[in-house]
């Protein structure tokens, strides 16, 4: 029950990070039911820490994801976020915010792409400054769980 509540809260944060604001009830239970997947099992210390950071808020999630894309593209956080996106794009009422095209004039489209790229670069830089020390600490910790 606690685990289910925990994964429900996790889903809410991840979904808000990806741009969803409502209609999350069904997705929450599906997300919880999918946590037993072997795809979400293996994780080392730093992978788990990234997930903990990402759970704090959508902003923290954005930074953790930006860092994970650079250093852990196939890691646990990315997998959980991809599951969240897969759920959102299949959810009634809200899927079109994820699976449809955003049509606009060429000028507006290219401007939007430039802004998106700029935002990504700034987030990645910030994430590197904030999370690289944590990464180093995880790598330096002495137990056997240091596959970082």
């Amino acid at each position, binding site marked *: 029950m606690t685990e289910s509540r925990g994964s429900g809260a996790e889903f809410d944060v991840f979904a808000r990070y990806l741009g969803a604001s409502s209609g999350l009830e069904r997705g929450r239970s599906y997300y919880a039911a999918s946590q037993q997947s072997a*795809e979400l099992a293996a994780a080392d210390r730093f992978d788990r820490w990234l997930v903990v950071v990402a759970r704090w808020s959508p902003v923290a999630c954005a930074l953790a994801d930006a860092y994970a894309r650079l250093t852990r593209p196939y890691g646990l956080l990315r997998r959980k976020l991809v599951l969240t996106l897969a759920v959102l794009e299949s959810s009634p009422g809200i899927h079109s915010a994820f*699976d*449809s095209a*955003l049509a606009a004039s060429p000028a507006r489209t290219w401007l939007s792409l430039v802004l998106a790229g700029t935002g990504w670069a700034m987030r990645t830089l910030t994430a590197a400054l904030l999370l690289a020390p944590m990464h180093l600490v995880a790598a330096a910790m002495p137990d056997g769980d240091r596959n970082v």
Partner: protein
Amino acid sequence: MSRFLVVGSGASGVHFAQSMLERGEHVEMLDVGFERPGSPLPDASFADLKDRLDEPEAYFLGAHGEGVVYPSPDAKPYGFPPSKAYVFRRPPDLAITERGFSPVVSYARGGLAEAWTGGSYELRDEELAEFPFSGADLRPHYEVIARRIGVTGEDDDLRPYSPMSASYLAPLALDAHSAALRERYERRREAVNATGFHLGRSRVAVLSRDLGARHACGELGRCLWGCPRGSLYAPSLTLAELLTHPHFTYRPGLVVHRVLLDARQRAVGVVAEPVGGGSAVEVRGERVVLAAGALATTRIYLQTFAALGVTDLTLPGLMDNRHVMVPFVNLSRVGKSVQLASYQYHMLAMAIDTGDWRTDVHGQISSLKAASVHPIVHSLPFDLRTSLRVFRRMRAALGVANIWLSDRRREVNLARLQRSSNGDTRMVLEYGDDTSDLPATHRAIATTRRALRQLGCFAPAGMVKVLPRGSSVHYAGTLPMGAEEHEHTCRANGEVRGVPGLHIADGAAFPWLPAKNLTFTLMANAARLAALIE
């Protein structure tokens, strides 16, 4: 006892059976026969399904997310949905040891073509050079199959590479992206052709008008999830027709283990085991026709000889087309809208003329329409939210060229049995030479990227995927047809030399593998065999 015992209900098996039934023969078909689940809400479009199904997440992703394509170094930009899981399900105890080869096998009703994209291309006369029959022998059977299944096509620049001798249906209307590509090609044809690249309409087994009980494509965008209208051809549609025939017997739930031979080594039946376990059964027939798919047929053949004490038999010549995915962005389409409710698969095809028909390259170009977006989004080089934003702006501009290279039989690519310490056997598939065609592969990629650039598209080199051998699912070559009298080869009528009464009707009997989708030719060849076998 039936005159003809057919093993497998795939593209080859059902069309062999249908031709035999049309001749008035009795046919018995043995099959594992995992069944396709029903299609929900047959009138709903891809997007409608998400809003109208009671549990859309379970339909699109499986009960516990098994349809999610998670990030990994080998992840493809698409995944097969849970509704297609039956196609790839394997019975227990049919493990394969793979070395340099990642095979896909099917034990479904209809076989692997239940999950194909419908590409239907005739072989050129020269592409049949190593076959013990000519193009003129095969053409009438392309016509038979085209009339049975319905193939759309158009007489265009691809005709020199994919002949159109059969009766083709008018093609479906092009989607906006494919239309933009073709228009640009027509304006720049001379320059594009100078690179060796030629563009035309895909020849596809999809209906542009009703055919029998099947309906014309309703543009629902559900091709990958299983066409609910029967518009996209699948062999299970033919099997359903066969089941109504009084001379046809279908026995699902059986894994054929080996061919039963008499004292003179003549095929007189098969030994099969129930899928769920139980005692082996013998099923007798006057002639045995293996059409289980090249790999399953090879396994049955090897086990037949193992039962005779020949445990070290090796069948060289395993083939599979090299498969490459070249994703691209059509810059003129960035920021445009997409009609998700449309025919989902490729509408354009391509050929690269290398100057030698043996090495010509064939491909199909798909624009992105209805699809699961998460596999594409997570492959972009940004954080997931940025990737989603970029993806949605560029959605109408995305496409992929799937290209194939030909393959030829080589000694180091082989199939054999391996016996374990407990006496069980398993098939070993070994692709020992996976590098000799890399220079040709890189040339094909370069030509495709150059041509796409001339068509106004950007194809990032870093996103090109050379897929593992086995990915094209065009398997062939272990029991090749040929004119020469060699052991473990077939005659022009598919009969195995030295084993009278045993015929090979699937890709295992192909002596060469052109760079094309094979299924249309498999079906035509099966119909050809049915006309030859007495």
